[in-house]
């Protein structure tokens, strides 16, 4: 390099330069500077800057290409349309309850449309149920993506495809299908048009991180394992079938039933009829079609005496041989408590149960006091909202101030409204040896259940209660449900419904809780009828013994074999089989 040495000369003044010019030059470029070397360095700097700029551009290009590799090209416009796959839901034996089916959905990219009029004309000709005005509005918008119709048939897709319209396309979407229709409705819930769960187990599923997966667009089909429910589809079907028939037979507003595994808390079947078809969930919003077992709260009537007697026996102050005064009606303030089957004498504990004596139950509860009563029911989970997997649940209606009058009425099942499933959970604890197990709709092993359970009663109390339940089937109000071979124990309940703040004599809620078998309980069955009516066949009676109990009998004879219950005949009476084993424990 030839040295171009402006700076080296560094003379204060250059040839021909005035002082002003020199000052100016020094200010601009600095004194004693080799401008040649400086220029080279700065050129190099400029080169590096441009290489950097091109590098950034190349980096951005690579970034786009990598993103593009991640999801297929079309996605960027139609991001809200990514497949929202859901896992299958199967019953405990593997039958499908809910599954995804791929269906095409019709969309348009209005910016790419050439002739809106032509598109509107051809599309409405193919899909007559499309609203032409709305369609035109959508197609004329300046948006990148609009849905035209979700879930069209394969035939329609073919026809539209053949129209050859630019800017009209199809996206395969997942449509949720419930092959059993209304048989499993309230429990499974349903999804909206975007395949998001909005009720029942479907909503629970979204809460388990599925919603987040959907948001991230990662909910692909292969990722997901089926969800196993505790439900047995066969039992569910039998239960629903009998409930539909019973509702018709007794002209009831509604009929509901639950089969609960006493030892695990699994809900094997749950029906609240009238129900709806989750494939077409429009009816789900009808208030008469609510799930009465979890979303409704009811005064359960005499079945609540199970709790009253269990409380008495568990307290140690009452034994099976204790006597309570049933000689006359019980007056409390301005209220008078009657018995349906008055004996007008002293009553033993088994008599209170089998004759379903309101007076006896009330006196027993009073003998322990309202505080004790309230604490006991709290312990049995009857005063707090029962939360299960499904989002539908209701708070029990508990009296704000719990006085003696409340204890009197609640002793025989009035004045406290609970969700029926909640009551059944409590009864489960009374039957299974005293373990309160929160019910579940998912599969659960006995070990898992035991880990979750709380011991709320002495095992001995549970045995005495099973004896009473069996006794009531042998010679009490529950005889009509005593299906031979299954050693059923059961308790009826009939509650007058509160209409406009008063108890209505002719509007009843009847229920029946059966334990099967009573000596070694496996399952509980709850049958509930809302406003059943008497008929000739029932001699005009509309109480639980005449409708809920016979319905339970029909259900038991159908589901017994399905639940692997071995029929046993010629078994001894309750006092021998159950109370005798009681002595062995002692």
């Amino acid at each position, binding site marked *: *390099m*030839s*040295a*171009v*040495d*402006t700076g*080296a*000369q560094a003379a204060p003044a*250059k*040839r*021909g*330069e*005035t002082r002003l*010019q*020199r000052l*100016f*030059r020094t*200010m*601009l*470029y*600095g004194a004693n*500077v080799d*401008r*040649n070397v*400086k*220029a*080279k360095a*700065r*050129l*190099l700097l*400029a*080169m590096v800057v*441009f*290489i950097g*700029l*091109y590098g*950034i*551009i*190349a980096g*951005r*290009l*690579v970034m*786009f*290409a990598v*993103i*593009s*590799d991640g999801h297929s*090209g*079309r996605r*960027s*416009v139609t991001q809200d349309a990514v497949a929202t796959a859901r896992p299958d839901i199967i019953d405990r034996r593997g039958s499908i309850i809910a599954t995804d089916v791929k269906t095409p959905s019709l969309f348009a990219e209005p*910016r*790419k449309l050439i002739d809106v009029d032509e598109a509107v004309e051809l599309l409405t000709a193919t899909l007559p149920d499309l609203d032409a005005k709305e369609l035109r509005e959508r197609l004329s918008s*300046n948006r*990148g993506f609009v849905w035209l119709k979700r879930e069209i048939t394969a035939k329609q897709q073919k026809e539209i495809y053949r129209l050859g319209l630019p800017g009209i396309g199809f996206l395969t979407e997942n449509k949720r299908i419930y092959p059993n229709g209304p048989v499993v409705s309230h429990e499974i819930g349903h999804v909206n048009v975007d395949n998001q769960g909005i009720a029942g187990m479907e909503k629970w599923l979204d809460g388990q991180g599925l919603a987040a997966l959907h948001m991230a667009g990662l909910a692909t089909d292969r990722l997901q394992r089926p969800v196993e429910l505790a439900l047995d589809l066969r039992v569910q079907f039998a239960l629903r079938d009998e409930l539909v028939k019973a509702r018709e037979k007794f002209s009831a507003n509604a009929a509901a039933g639950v089969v609960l595994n006493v030892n695990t808390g699994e809900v094997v079947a749950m029906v609240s009829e009238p129900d709806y078809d989750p494939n077409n969930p429009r009816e789900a919003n009808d208030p008469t079609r609510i799930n009465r077992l979890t979303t409704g709260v009811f005064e359960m009537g005499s079945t609540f005496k199970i709790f009253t007697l269990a409380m008495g026996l568990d307290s140690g102050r009452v034994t099976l041989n204790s006597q309570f005064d049933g000689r006359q009606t019980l007056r409390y303030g301005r209220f008078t408590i009657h018995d349906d089957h008055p004996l007008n004498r002293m009553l033993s504990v088994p008599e209170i149960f089998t004759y379903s004596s309101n007076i006896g139950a009330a006196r027993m509860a009073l003998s322990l006091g309202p505080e004790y009563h309230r604490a006991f029911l709290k312990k049995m989970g009857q005063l707090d909202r029962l939360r299960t997997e499904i989002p539908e649940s209701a708070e029990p209606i508990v009296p704000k101030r719990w006085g003696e009058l409340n204890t009197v009425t609640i002793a025989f099942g009035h004045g406290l409204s609970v969700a029926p499933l909640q009551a059944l959970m409590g009864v489960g604890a009374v039957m299974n040896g005293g373990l309160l197990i929160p019910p579940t709709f998912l599969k659960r092993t006995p070990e898992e259940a035991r880990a979750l359970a709380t011991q709320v009663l002495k095992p001995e109390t549970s045995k005495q209660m099973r004896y009473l339940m069996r006794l009531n089937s042998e010679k009490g109000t529950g005889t009509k449900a005593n299906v031979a071979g299954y050693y059923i124990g059961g308790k009826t309940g009939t509650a007058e419904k509160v209409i406009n703040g008063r108890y209505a004599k002719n509007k009843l809620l009847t229920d029946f809780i059966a334990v099967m078998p009573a000596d070694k309980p496996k399952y509980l069955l709850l049958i509930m009828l809302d406003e059943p009516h008497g008929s000739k066949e029932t001699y005009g009676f509309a109480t639980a013994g005449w409708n809920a109990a016979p319905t339970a009998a029909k259900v038991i004879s159908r589901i017994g074999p399905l639940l692997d219950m071995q029929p046993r005949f010629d078994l001894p009476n309750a006092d021998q089989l159950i109370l005798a084993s009681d002595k062995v424990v002692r």
Partner: protein
Amino acid sequence: MISRAQRTPIGEWWWTVDRLTIAAVGALMLAGIVLSLAASPPVAGRIGLEPFYFVNRHIFFLFPTIAIMLGVSFLTPHQIRRLALIVFAISLVMVAVTPIFGQEIKGAKRWLVLFGVNIQPSEFLKPAFVILIAWLFGESAKRPEMPANTFALILLLTVVALLVIQPDFGQTMLIVLVWSALFFMAGMRVIWMFGIAGAAGFGLLVAYYTVPHVATRIQRFLNPQSGDTFNIDVATESFMRGGWFGQGPGEGTVKRMLPEAHTDFVFSVAAEEFGVVLCLALVSLYTFIVVRAMLRAMRNDDPFCRFAAAGLTMLFATQSAINMAVNLHLIPAKGMTLPFISYGGSSMLSLAYGMGMLLALTREQPRGAMLTAPDDLLPAGSRP
């Protein structure tokens, strides 16, 4: 003809000119034809011209382009300066009269109709301006008695004033940038850089507050929700759609949606149909040309040649980088053509002129030729 045995002008040219750069420019032109075939028929169809209108014109313009580029590359630095002075004078007058006689397109008067041909005079102003500025800065190093810096500043202000009147902020920015860069290379103290940056920032701020479309464009870039970002959305989407290897020739959709698919957004069309791989190839071609020209400029000891070559390179590089960056949504939208690829007669001829001068200025010059060169080509320090 290009034998080394004899000294013919063409032979001398062939052995001294940067043949690899010519090859790279040729590759760009070829890509330009292919992409014009891809991008322009839908655009032509949309405005009611026959499909290959733009393709034909694009190819038609390539002939004068090549001729000008090669022709200019034969010139000596001395001739280049003279030519630049003439071109600058003519185009300055044309730029000056554009606001009066020009054709208004999209709210700005940038086009002049001469003999039935649309001409954008500011395109031709740019390379000539760079040459003059490089000469002035070169002189300021050699002959301090000449008020070269003052002249350079006056030239800049004149050109900027004329361009702002049109208004054409893209070209203004480009010219200010190149001028500042040349000033910087000429050895200006770093402290002045802050001054220039401050002035540029102030100018931008004034533009932001006085010219509505500048403001909206910047706002849209910073906050895409604030307005219609249709062009940019579509352009960005095309890169995603294209992926590494593209959708395939003719499979693109961007060209059907963007009115400037064949000019400002040809890069997006390339991405969608031919993939990011082609885009990366184009970026490498530009990088290659720029780095090579810069290295040659550095090797050149003559201040004028060095500054002129560097200035022309920066003009070329900035223009290509801005176009690609806008397509990739790295900077706010700014209409600027992609050198030798975008459609546009004025732009192409101007680029040919610039590239021709760059080739001429970066020719290998034997030391001997320099020593016998006219007086003003000699470095000041080596003067006897």
